[in-house]
């Protein structure tokens, strides 16, 4: 177990280092730099700026210095937001993304799991067909269609919530609802297929033969195994949700990490883009590890070992 976690952590360090390097190299490969967009800047000012930030050095020196500063958590400063370090930018945006993403995750589970379970238990019947028809439609509705509709209806027409921005304490509701409803479709489909497959297993038949109540069979015996494929989906999903959805944060104008990343990419703010990409990667690694541990705990047939 401990060896497994250690080997995963080492793999995680490889991932994060690679992500920082790739982000840097993509941005370096593109023409122009962080200061080439500002107008009315004399050439010598731009040169001085680039010297201060070390942009005049060869790329491998810059990359090495950046990697070192991330490794020692002595986070570099932003090129665009003067005086802000990458750490401060993450600390400001993450609570927004975490609130919206966390609620979205909760909504998707609360809708998707019961709906999928109902469909699995009534397989082939009306409830199943209706739920799955809605779920199939649901996975096809993109957030950039549903988001504006939700903002229009609940924000502008009914005026229950702000249509955009991050001012009131209830501003997480609409974006979280948008994301949660969309993700609940896939959650329902996975719950259904997982539960259906599990209910056909021998050990479930044994439990039935012993006379265990159907409710107990589903809740205690089948469900543990049935949520394995669901957990595999939820790990990366949770990482993506709490790190900020690019589309939803744009639709609802939220000051979260997703939008911050887009603007840092557009303005070639190397350090912020690297820091955010690394942060996204850390979240993915952590959530995948959590999922593996959770699965081993739920399924006695899985033994964690370093592959």
């Amino acid at each position, binding site marked *: 177990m401990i060896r497994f976690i250690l080997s995963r952590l080492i*793999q*995680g360090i*490889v*991932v994060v280092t*690679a*992500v920082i390097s*790739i*982000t840097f190299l*993509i*941005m370096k*490969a*593109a023409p122009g730099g962080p200061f080439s967009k500002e107008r009315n800047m004399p050439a010598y000012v731009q040169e001085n700026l680039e010297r201060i930030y070390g942009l005049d050095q060869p790329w491998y020196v810059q990359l090495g210095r950046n990697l070192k500063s991330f490794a020692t958590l002595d986070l570099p400063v932003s090129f665009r937001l003067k005086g802000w370090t990458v750490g401060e930018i993450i600390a400001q945006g993450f609570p927004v993304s975490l609130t919206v993403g966390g609620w979205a995750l909760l909504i998707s589970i609360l809708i998707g799991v019961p709906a999928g379970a109902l469909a699995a238990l009534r*397989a*082939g019947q009306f409830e199943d067909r209706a739920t799955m028809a809605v779920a*199939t*439609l649901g*996975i*096809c*509705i*993109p*957030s*950039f*269609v549903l*988001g*504006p*509709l939700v903002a*229009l209806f609940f924000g*502008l027409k009914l005026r229950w919530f702000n249509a955009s921005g991050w001012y009131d304490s209830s501003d997480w509701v609409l974006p979280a609802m948008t994301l949660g409803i969309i993700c609940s479709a896939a959650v329902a489909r996975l719950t259904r297929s997982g539960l*259906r497959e599990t209910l056909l297993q021998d050990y479930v038949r044994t439990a039935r033969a012993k006379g265990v109540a159907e409710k107990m069979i589903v809740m205690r015996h089948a469900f543990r195994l049935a949520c394995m494929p669901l957990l595999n989906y939820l790990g*990366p999903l949770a990482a*993506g949700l709490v*790190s900020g959805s*690019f*589309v939803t944060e*744009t*639709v609802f104008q939220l000051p979260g990490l997703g939008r911050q*990343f*887009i603007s840092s*990419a*557009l303005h*070639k703010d190397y350090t912020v*883009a690297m820091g*955010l*990409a690394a942060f*996204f*990667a850390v979240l*993915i*690694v952590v959530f*995948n590890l959590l999922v593996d541990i959770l699965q081993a705990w739920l399924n006695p047939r899985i033994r964690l070992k370093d*592959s």
Partner: protein
Amino acid sequence: MKANGGNAGGAPKSPGPWKAAWIRLQRQRTAMWALGFLALVVALCVGGPWLSPYTESQQNLDHVKEMPGWSHWMGTDQLGRDVATRILFGGRVSLLVGVVATAVAMVIGVVYGLISGFFGGRLDSAMMRLIDILYGFPFMAFIILISAVFGRNFILLFVAIGAVEWLTTARVVRAQVLGLKHQEFILASRVCGAGSGHILLRHLLPNVMGQVVIYASLTVPGVMLLEGVLSFLGLGVQPPSSSWGVLIQEGASNMETAPWLLFFPGVFFVMTLLALNTLGDGLRDALDPKTNREGS
């Protein structure tokens, strides 16, 4: 469509299994409806713009944001352009991105999976380790980054999306190859003196194609969604050319005054994705003998 082509035409070398799958697919009504709808959408997007009296970027500032009516079936946008015509032109781009990027992803995934599964051993475990590591990458961030810093480069968009979507295909193909490579017909071929290249191309590749077709048909809608996201964020296809993502973005910013600008492109996009997903599910039932048993 790609899936359909491979299926309906049938591979000439082994007509048996493909034909059987086609017959099984025909029995599924919803999948056939989806196939018919897709054929219609493709025909409209390819041929429709020629029949339309308007062009993609023809502006008419006297008829701005006109409601749907006889002269403009789906209304006009904020610059007086015909929405129906723009949807058809945009559909060309969206469908093209979906098919081409999927093809890129499938080629990479199949080659990677075949090599990894067939040669096995150290190479296999190293290649699978690499995939494990790649799964930890924030790919959406990379794609946004690439389109933001290079921008306006269509080919790059294909490559970037294709380079992301191959991971699962590679895993699926590898698992198939592992199951196949010790079977008698491979051994027989070896005994006859066939080299690795021959076995890979003539025996393993045709046998994994069924799974690849299933995955391709489910990847196309995913890729179209990605293209939509990028265009919506202003990082994908650049105006005045359009894609469904661009049209939806324009519709979203005008939805208070002209809701049909969001409605029609949205309906086309969602319906096409729905048809693709339905067809993909149907193909899975038709091509994958494992799920056939239950016939859900």
